[in-house]
């Protein structure tokens, strides 16, 4: 276990029914770093991501073996409430999924249910979250308009702001830019770079250049196994495993 690891995955196996989606995964995610999970479709990287905040609980017939420690506590221990875990470990999805509410209410929805906040506290939180997600200047005059009117890139930044408003420690991102145009993608990447000062970010991406650009560490998965996990610079210049090199150079996948 690394000293500054925030999440430790210890010998995790995961099953969808009889199908084994992850085999003997063992890895530590370090605090305040951006870790990229890469690999071909169906390699289990998204599955692993969704294990980290127990989103796979929503799927019937799944089974987890092994343990995942968050700040030293096994999040799959029987007495752990997944709701508590998800407050600490936020998530941004592949497709922007704002609620059909106003921009303001999208942000205030979670905090209002969780804390007893005054109107001005919520106002501050909304502003602060939107500023963190670099969306404030674009939406400060239309906070009471529906979030559905925003562009895809704005919606995704709104979703990031919504997750940040819950004051999580970790932010999980499941291909957050795959549905966005290049300019929106660049904005989100910039944002990720900014956010890692305060948050630990784990991002699944299909885009190799993106992983190389924004991550500090990269993990390569193939058919449910962790093949190689190292500093991003090392993975992309001198990987230890031939398989990794083949994937990164585009020989398969």
């Amino acid at each position: 276990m690394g000293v500054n690891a925030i999440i430790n995955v210890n010998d995790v196996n995961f099953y969808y029914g009889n199908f084994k989606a992850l085999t003997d995964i063992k890895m530590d995610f370090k605090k305040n770093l951006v870790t990229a999970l890469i690999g071909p479709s169906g390699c289990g990287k998204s599955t692993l991501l969704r294990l980290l905040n127990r989103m796979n609980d929503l799927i019937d017939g799944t089974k987890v073996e092994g343990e995942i420690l968050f700040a030293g506590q096994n999040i799959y221990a029987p007495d752990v409430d997944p709701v508590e875990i998800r407050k600490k470990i936020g998530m941004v999805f592949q497709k922007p999924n704002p609620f059909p509410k106003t921009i303001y209410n999208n942000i205030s929805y979670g905090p209002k249910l969780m804390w007893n906040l005054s109107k001005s506290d919520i106002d501050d939180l909304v502003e602060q979250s939107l500023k963190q997600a670099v969306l404030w200047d674009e939406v400060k005059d239309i906070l009471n308009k529906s979030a559905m009117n925003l562009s895809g890139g704005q919606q995704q930044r709104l979703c990031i702001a919504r997750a940040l408003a819950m004051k999580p420690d970790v932010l999980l991102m499941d291909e957050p830019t795959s549905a966005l145009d290049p300019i929106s993608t660049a904005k989100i990447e910039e944002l990720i770079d900014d956010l890692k000062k305060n948050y630990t970010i784990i991002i699944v991406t299909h885009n190799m250049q993106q992983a190389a650009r924004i991550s500090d560490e990269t993990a390569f998965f193939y058919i449910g196994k962790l093949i190689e996990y190292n500093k991003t610079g090392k993975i992309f210049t001198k990987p230890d495993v031939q398989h990794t090199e083949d994937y990164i150079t585009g020989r398969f996948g």
Partner: protein
Amino acid sequence: MPPRYPLKAKGYKELTNVINKIKDNSMQWRYFKQKIFFGAVRISALIIVLTLGGIVFHIIFNGIGVISWDFITKYPTDSMTKGGIMPAIIGTLYLTVGAISVGLPLGIVSAIYLTEYARQGKIVRIIKVGINCLAGVPSVVFGLFGLGLFVVFLKFGSSILAGSLTLGFLILPTIIGAAEEALKSVPQTFREASLALGVSKWQTIFRIVLPNALPGIMTGSILGIGRAAGETAPIMFTAAAYFTSKLPGSIFDEVMALPYHIYVLATAGTNIEQTRPIQFGTALVLVALVLGIDLIAIVIRSYMRKQKRW
């Protein structure tokens, strides 16, 4: 060798040739098929509209003559051969509101259980088959059930309460079905987004799923409202009075109701022929009432739809 297909006689060959020619010219053949199909669809739609129009026209034509302010605000007089139908209007309103108050919450809660909580498997399938069977039960059986359970066993007597409960159960399958569809149509991504924020499942359902499903649930309820207001058999034994000289004072009182009033006048009245206009007038009021309630529901629904958009 005798011909194997006696149909292939003179003329048949020519016809086949023509058809083959058209088939060869395949675009033309396809347009022809399309025209036939569209024509059939248009005629079907027309038949539906004409049927509805015919019924409404028939009722209006025969009933409009007796409609007056007095007709809808006065009690019946002279053994119900003259006067108004006010108590029946009020009674039907009570029963409809009562049925919705019973059916809507119960139906929504059942649908939430079926779509959000229950594990999709054998038990859910059995429950769903049960609900479909319930929808197919003849309404008079509901009436007898209501008589046995609410009127006799629970000692509610023939009353608004017993009638509302009976009608509520009658429209339950309609409401469950509509609510289920509406809940399922709320995108899964909304649920995920809410749960990923650390919001509990119940809060997610209550704050995100249900509000977005409400317009759809309303649509289903509209059908339920129409059915509750129009049914005769379920209230015959459980709520409806032949004649009352005062309005009900509590939910344990009997009421007159429009469909039962029509039934009584048309089959058991003192002078069936003479009261024919009153029968049509009552039917007209019933249809107008149901359409009126529907209209209110549609307005509320479209208002809610405007709020929610995704």
